[in-house]
């Protein structure tokens, strides 16, 4: 609750600071101090309970999982601010407003981690995405940015419409928005026997399907991914970075919470009675997503576009959590959120300073800027899931959670195969940096020489990723304390 309230308040503070504070550099400071306050408040809530006692009528539930995810999201946003606030200032004339919108997105993410009610799911998703539509279109003179914003807005609204329709059907079928009760009331009432086809109302199944489609759209699972490449490519790189990291992780947490709550009430057998095999639907989504993401990413010539497709591929891996729906999946998604978000923020921080976004643009970076090239290599290795980086354990937990459910070995094998494919395009960037020479020797690959502080932070981030990769339990330790 602290994080929700404070991030909304911080958004308002940033909004007013655009009027009261004229110094562009000061916004970063205000935003960072604000994030620190939110972080402290959230950690305090983890141990001592919330500052504000608010009766939410069980619409929001703050358990260890959601609070820990909040911490991750806040820390990632902090890292994002430190690394890229300079680029945010360059986007346009509304720096303070961009910070405001990012704080609102954070508010949406914290709602999504704690929602316990379909109504809150809807509001959370909306708060998460509406500021993003604007951030996507924030380069007003750039046609690509405009196109991306419009595409994102239209497609996003359509999928939100599907979600609303689904929620309405679920409400019609069960008479409640509450997550734990979206399973038919007949099962628990009067000690009735197990759920059967008769009691599992079609409204509930149809509604659940629509909500699933909509959430699959939000996390860009194929075949609902068509918006993503254009949006990620067209949006200003700084904001793509945020979309691909914290936002995506939050959407996955929402997805996971919904399915875990659902699975707790309805067994696989019941789903089979009425001819809906949820596991199979998710499996199809996973395979489509991995296939589309990886194959398309291999064919890209532009690093930004490649990262967009690779983000689809990563979504495929995160979907494993929704497939297996066990404790390990929960741990895995948190680990994935850390590993994937930090690596993506790091890569984009470097990318947004590049002159040329193609693979050739990276040629010879190792010579001119060895520190950045090293850090970038670590980030890419982490995304590819190479051992000793955080990404390896994230992927390992995902696959292991599927193994735990049993009988689905083939899916694990498919996952491993595609992980191998993904190495191809990540290594091409590394190859460019280390083994190719830049054509224009005199000019660097970067727009301007990065400050030493930036270099140190990026390298520190890379070291953190390696540390998490070596001691993954250091992250999960916090979840259980």
């Amino acid at each position, binding site marked *: 609750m602290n994080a929700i309230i404070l991030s*909304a308040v911080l958004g308002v503070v940033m909004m007013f600071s655009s009027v009261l504070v004229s110094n562009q550099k000061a916004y970063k400071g205000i935003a960072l101090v604000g994030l620190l306050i939110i972080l402290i408040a959230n950690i305090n809530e983890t141990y001592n309970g919330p500052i504000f006692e608010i009766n939410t009528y069980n619409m929001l539930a703050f358990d260890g999982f959601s609070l820990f995810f909040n911490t991750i999201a806040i820390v990632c946003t902090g890292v994002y601010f430190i690394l890229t606030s300079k680029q945010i200032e360059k986007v346009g004339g509304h720096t303070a407003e961009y910070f*405001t919108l990012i704080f609102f997105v954070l508010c949406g993410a914290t709602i999504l981690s704690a929602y316990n009610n379909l*109504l809150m799911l809807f509001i959370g998703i909306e708060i998460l995405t509406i500021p993003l539509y604007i951030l996507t279109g924030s380069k007003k003179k750039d046609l690509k940015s405009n196109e991306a914003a419009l595409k994102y807005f239209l497609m996003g609204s359509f999928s939100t419409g599907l979600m609303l329709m689904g929620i309405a059907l679920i409400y019609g079928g069960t008479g409640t928005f509450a997550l734990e009760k979206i399973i038919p009331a007949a099962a628990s009432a009067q000690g009735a026997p197990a759920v059967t086809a*008769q009691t599992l109302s079609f409204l509930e199944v149809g509604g659940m399907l629509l909500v699933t489609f909509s959430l699959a759209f939000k996390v860009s699972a194929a075949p609902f991914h068509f918006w993503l490449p254009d949006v990620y490519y067209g949006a200003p790189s700084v904001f793509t970075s945020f979309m691909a990291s914290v936002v995506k992780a939050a959407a996955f947490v929402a997805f996971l919470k919904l399915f875990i709550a659902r699975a707790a009430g309805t067994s696989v057998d019941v789903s089979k009675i009425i001819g809906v095999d949820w596991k199979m639907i998710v499996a199809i989504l996973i395979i489509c997503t991995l296939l589309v993401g990886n194959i398309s990413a291999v064919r890209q010539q532009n690093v930004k576009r490649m990262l967009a497709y690779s983000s689809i591929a990563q979504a495929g891996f995160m979907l494993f959590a929704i497939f297996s729906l066990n404790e390990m999946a929960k741990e895995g998604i948190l680990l994935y959120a850390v590993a994937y978000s930090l690596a993506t923020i790091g890569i984009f921080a470097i990318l947004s300073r590049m002159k040329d976004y193609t693979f050739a643009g990276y040629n010879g970076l190792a010579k001119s800027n060895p520190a950045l090239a090293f850090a970038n290599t670590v980030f890419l290795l982490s995304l590819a899931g190479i051992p000793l980086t955080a990404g390896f354990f994230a992927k390992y937990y995902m696959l292991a959670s599927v193994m735990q459910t049993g009988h689905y070995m083939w899916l694990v094998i498919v996952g491993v195969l595609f992980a191998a494919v993904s190495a191809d395009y990540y290594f091409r960037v590394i190859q460019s940096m280390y083994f190719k020479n830049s054509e224009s020797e005199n000019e660097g690959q970067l727009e301007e020489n990065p400050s030493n502080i930036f270099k140190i932070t990026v390298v520190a981030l890379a070291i953190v990723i390696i540390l998490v990769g070596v001691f993954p339990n250091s992250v999960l330790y916090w979840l259980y304390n």
Partner: protein
Amino acid sequence: MSATEIIFWILSVLALVSGLMVIFSKNPVYSVLWLISLFFAISGHYILMNAQFLAIVNIIVYAGAIMVLFLFVIMLMNLSATAEPKKKVWMKFTGVISGGLLLWILLSVVRSSIDMRGKIAEVKTGDIGLVENLGKVLFTEYAVPFEICSVLFLSAMVGAVVIGKKEE
């Protein structure tokens, strides 16, 4: 058949026809006007369910404000049937296929349901849609979502300013 049922069927037919005409009209202005008629039909349904407040708010907000803005934009753009770009055949084809798949799934879900057979809409029951009850629920049980919605609106407003304001 009671009077209520007759009205129910008339409104349902009106809603469905309007909804279809929104899609099939070549001229976007017609689409908007059909959409308005659809809102009226739905407001009629609200009244049948004894939710006068929702009915009139639906008309004020959607038919009275949002659709006027829609009409505004469409009229200023002066779109007409001839200005619409020709879509490729294969694009239409894929559209039909994906839309058809969704329809298929929903239909099969409806078909497999047993509990909904022989049931029709309930009318003239419940008083949750009356303004007094709605207000009470909104400010007690649903106070938290209600308050959080303000963040949503605020972000939309900030966004409108960011997008709309001239860059110096």
